[in-house]
């Protein structure tokens, strides 16, 4: 019963995060974002995944999960560095907005739920979240951030990160399959 409650809490958290990110893609009530707000949202979404990775590095002992988390931290940092270099060049100051605020609030709830787990349960919860989060982020980048970007270079940067997000999603699904296949820690 406890397990079921914990799963429901995590699922609700995930659903909320995913819903917030997917809402704009639905075409209705699409938030209007300036380039400064698009930049802030993009950096926030990347930072959230770095923070999830940090949590995984603290709590997981699974080699595949740790390797995945290491890649997420490194790749999303590279994207943030590119975004910061671009906004600096363009003289744009990233501006907090309703979408980035909601993302942060939902991420905090998800992290709180993940912190209650350990071992194989943590690994599965972390990877399930990564699958859902990357699906949501891809939808948001393609359905909201790219269309809302006015500056061509900002739009180009966002378009260039979509293949990386897709590769992350496939990687997460691969690890998810491994975890569901044997349910135990696996090393190389």
């Amino acid at each position: 019963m406890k397990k079921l409650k914990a799963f429901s809490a995590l699922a609700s958290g995930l659903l909320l995060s995913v819903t917030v990110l997917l809402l704009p893609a639905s075409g209705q009530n699409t938030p209007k974002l300036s380039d400064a707000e698009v930049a802030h949202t993009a950096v926030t979404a990347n930072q959230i995944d770095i923070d999830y990775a940090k949590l995984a590095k603290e709590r997981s002992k699974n080699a595949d999960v740790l390797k995945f988390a290491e890649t997420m931290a490194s790749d999303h940092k590279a994207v943030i560095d590119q975004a910061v270099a671009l906004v600096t060049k363009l003289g744009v100051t990233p501006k907090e907005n309703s979408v980035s605020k909601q993302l942060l609030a939902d991420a905090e709830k998800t992290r709180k739920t993940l912190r209650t787990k350990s071992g194989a349960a943590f690994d599965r919860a972390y990877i399930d979240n990564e699958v859902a989060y990357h699906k949501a982020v891809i939808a948001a980048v393609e359905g909201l951030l790219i269309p809302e970007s006015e500056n061509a270079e900002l739009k180009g940067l966002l378009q260039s990160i979509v293949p990386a997000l897709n590769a992350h999603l496939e990687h997460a699904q691969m690890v998810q399959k491994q975890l569901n296949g044997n349910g135990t820690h696996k090393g190389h």
Partner: protein
Amino acid sequence: MPKWYKSNSTEMEHTKAIKNTLHLTPFVFVLLYLSSLLVVTIPVTHTVEIRQMQFTPAELTVNKGDKVVFVNKDIVTHDVTEASGKLWQSPALTSGKSWSMVITRSQAYYCSYHPVMKGKILIR
């Protein structure tokens, strides 16, 4: 001295020169053969670009001894790892870095950071 005599003398000299060089013929053939071998074995350098989370070309056919240079044109770090993960692996290639290897056998490889990225090198 009549002109025909001079002409005839030149012709004889030419004939003599040809006869003198006839014994070199086998060496000429050997040299030609060796040079043809040299043309075949000169190694060629190929380039595989890592761009948009893909190895391009993903499949490359080369001659044994050719060199393949991997160039990372993505913003994220990649590497090139032999499919089994045991035979060889490049160092981490940050954006803009490259790494090369001489190909001695057909092999499949992937990026250990992004295992969904795969490539293949085949010996012709």
